[in-house]
């Protein structure tokens, strides 16, 4: 029951800035990030710890913990702005238009209520259904996410389910009001490897069927390669590269993405050494001038510390790297 296709992207983020006021000054954790997600599309947002990807997700749902706040830019859902809504407005959108899947299913579900009660409560909050109709819908959803014997399981408490099943319930909760957008923040990190593949498959299938756009935040490139249509790579609060997943994974255009893909151990020929990127991601209070990656970049040149690069076309993707500026590109082999 996918809703009719609307024109224009479901989620549009323009020049988003998220900052923290600390007693040592203002720290910018997300710095001028822009992207869009279309209907039924999965955008993977990938980055290491401290890159700002979780904060971006939190900013979109309006769940930033103070002293973090949106310091600039706009966020539009189906064309209308949501970043400047008052608390009530955001609350209505959350759950109904935007569904969320977080990392730890143990804390996402209330341990004191049965999963049925939580599902039914969420359904009735956002859709005008009678209790019986809501219960039927809940059972249908549980069946959709692949929970065996849903009519029986609906009376169970979260602790009676295994990690993988709990995460399926969380996905069902996220989708129960037919949201336009689903934000999944590290949905498989806390799960075993064999369960991860199952959960990813469920998420992808359901979002496609419900016509929801998905923002998949993770540090795991493997999950992205399996699930996403497009991927955005974040570094030190900025976008380093964004493009179709096949291109970014197999022909990365940004030196950071290249380093990242090289560091991932893969099956195949046994290499002596994994590619390693020297140093570590800069702290928020010590972000280098110009391109944030230049101190660690094997291909940095004079322009890099001077000017911060904007996203430039590089093959089928966009990369924030001066190597792709027209003058330099001509000089490269």
């Amino acid at each position, binding site marked *: 029951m996918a809703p009719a296709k609307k024109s224009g992207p479901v989620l549009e983020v323009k020049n988003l800035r998220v900052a923290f006021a600390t007693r040592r000054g203002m720290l910018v954790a997300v710095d001028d990030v822009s992207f869009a997600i279309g209907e039924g599309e999965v955008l993977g947002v990938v980055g290491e710890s401290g890159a700002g990807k979780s904060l971006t997700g939190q900013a979109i749902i309006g769940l930033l913990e103070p002293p973090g706040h949106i310091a600039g830019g706009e966020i539009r859902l189906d064309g209308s702005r949501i970043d400047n809504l008052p608390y009530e407005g955001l609350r209505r959108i959350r759950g109904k238009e935007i569904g969320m899947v977080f990392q730890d299913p143990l804390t996402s579900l209330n341990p004191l209520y049965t999963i049925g009660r939580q599902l039914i409560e969420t359904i009735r909050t956002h859709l005008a259904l009678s209790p019986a109709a809501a219960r039927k819908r809940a059972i249908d959803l549980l069946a959709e996410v692949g929970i065996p014997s849903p009519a029986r399981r609906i009376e169970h408490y979260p602790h009676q389910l295994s990690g993988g099943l709990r995460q399926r319930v969380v996905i069902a909760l996220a989708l129960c009001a037919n949201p336009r957008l689903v934000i999944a923040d590290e949905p498989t990190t806390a799960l075993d490897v064999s369960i991860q593949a199952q959960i990813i498959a469920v998420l992808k299938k359901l979002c496609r069927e419900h016509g929801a756009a998905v923002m998949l935040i993770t*540090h795991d490139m493997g999950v992205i390669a399996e699930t996403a249509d497009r991927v955005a790579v974040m570094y030190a609060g900025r976008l380093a590269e964004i493009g179709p997943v096949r291109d970014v994974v197999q022909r990365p255009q940004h030196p950071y993405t290249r380093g990242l893909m090289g560091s*991932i151990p893969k099956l195949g020929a046994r290499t002596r050494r994994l590619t390693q990127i020297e140093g570590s991601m800069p702290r928020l209070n010590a972000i280098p001038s110009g391109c944030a990656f230049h101190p660690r970049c094997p291909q940095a040149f004079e322009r890099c510390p001077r000017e911060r690069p904007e996203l430039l076309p590089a093959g089928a993707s966009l990369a924030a790297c001066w190597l792709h500026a027209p003058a330099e590109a001509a000089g490269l082999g």
Partner: protein
Amino acid sequence: MAELQVPRQRAKAASASDRPLVEVSGLAKSFDVSPPWLTRVLRGQGRLRLAAVDGISFAIPQGRTFSLVGESGCGKSTVARLLVGLYEPSAGEVIFDGQPVAGRRNRARLQAVRHRLQMVFQDPYASLNPRMRVADIVAEPIRAHRLIEGEAPIRRRVGELLEQVRLSPGDGVRFPHEFSGGQRQRISIARALASEPDFIVCDEPTSALDVSVQAQILNLLKELQREYALTYLFISHDLAVVFHVSDYLGVMYLGRLVEWGPAESIFTAPKHPYTRMLLDAIPDLEMSGRPRAPVAGEVPSPIDPPSGCHFHPRCPHAFDRCRIEAPQPTPGSGGVLVRCHAFAEGKIA
């Protein structure tokens, strides 16, 4: 790599002997997880035992890396702790350099070789004492085993160790919280190297780290192994990482080894259905679009494992015998041992 000024006490490398450095036979450990006495009486329950490790045998040649791989609840972390003496086995032997070292009766022997066994832990945020300076943390094994006398030589040695893990000797005065996760793991590795061990157990040393930091740490571990002829037991749930570091590999499921032997053989031709499923579950970064059969079911609770072969509820090749009888190790090609009835009877190649 920094030159060591303190002469190494023992001879290097593989020429030493062809006896494996570490040998484990019939190792088992069970925990008593019974509810309190009153609860048991009121509910009429008996004692509850969790068989975390259920009869494991393997050997690690000197200078090589043996990896134990498996999902949560398979018992690999328990095996790690059994090998270094943090737990006492319920049954079985751990033989280190020809000497049995496990269990109460071998306490003295364990004490004698303690400095040769070391461990690197998983959580970089919990494996260093937050109140101790880094130099003291790294020096502690040296002081505990009295390997070097005198403050100045100890300080010099600590400086060397820090340089070996690519930190600067000046970092010794700082506290752990001033470092990132990857740097803390380096400090842990420096501490492990401080007692000049022969054998290091690495318990998921990179699971909590970012992928680029993981690459640095894995490279470092490999370099150190080459330099000092170290023997590793490497615990992980990540088969891709294990592929990169292992010479030998053991796949564990619910306390038992289901397949073990040379890593090359297992990766090119996995025989046990669980091993095949694990390999299949590795995400496809080559994006070859190969068809994947996602693994069915979940890992059962180790308190009440399935009868016979623990894997039979999830196994596509299970038949009657699998429900009744636990399989014995069967040799396969490439020096591998497999616990699987279907394999033993030739039903799967």
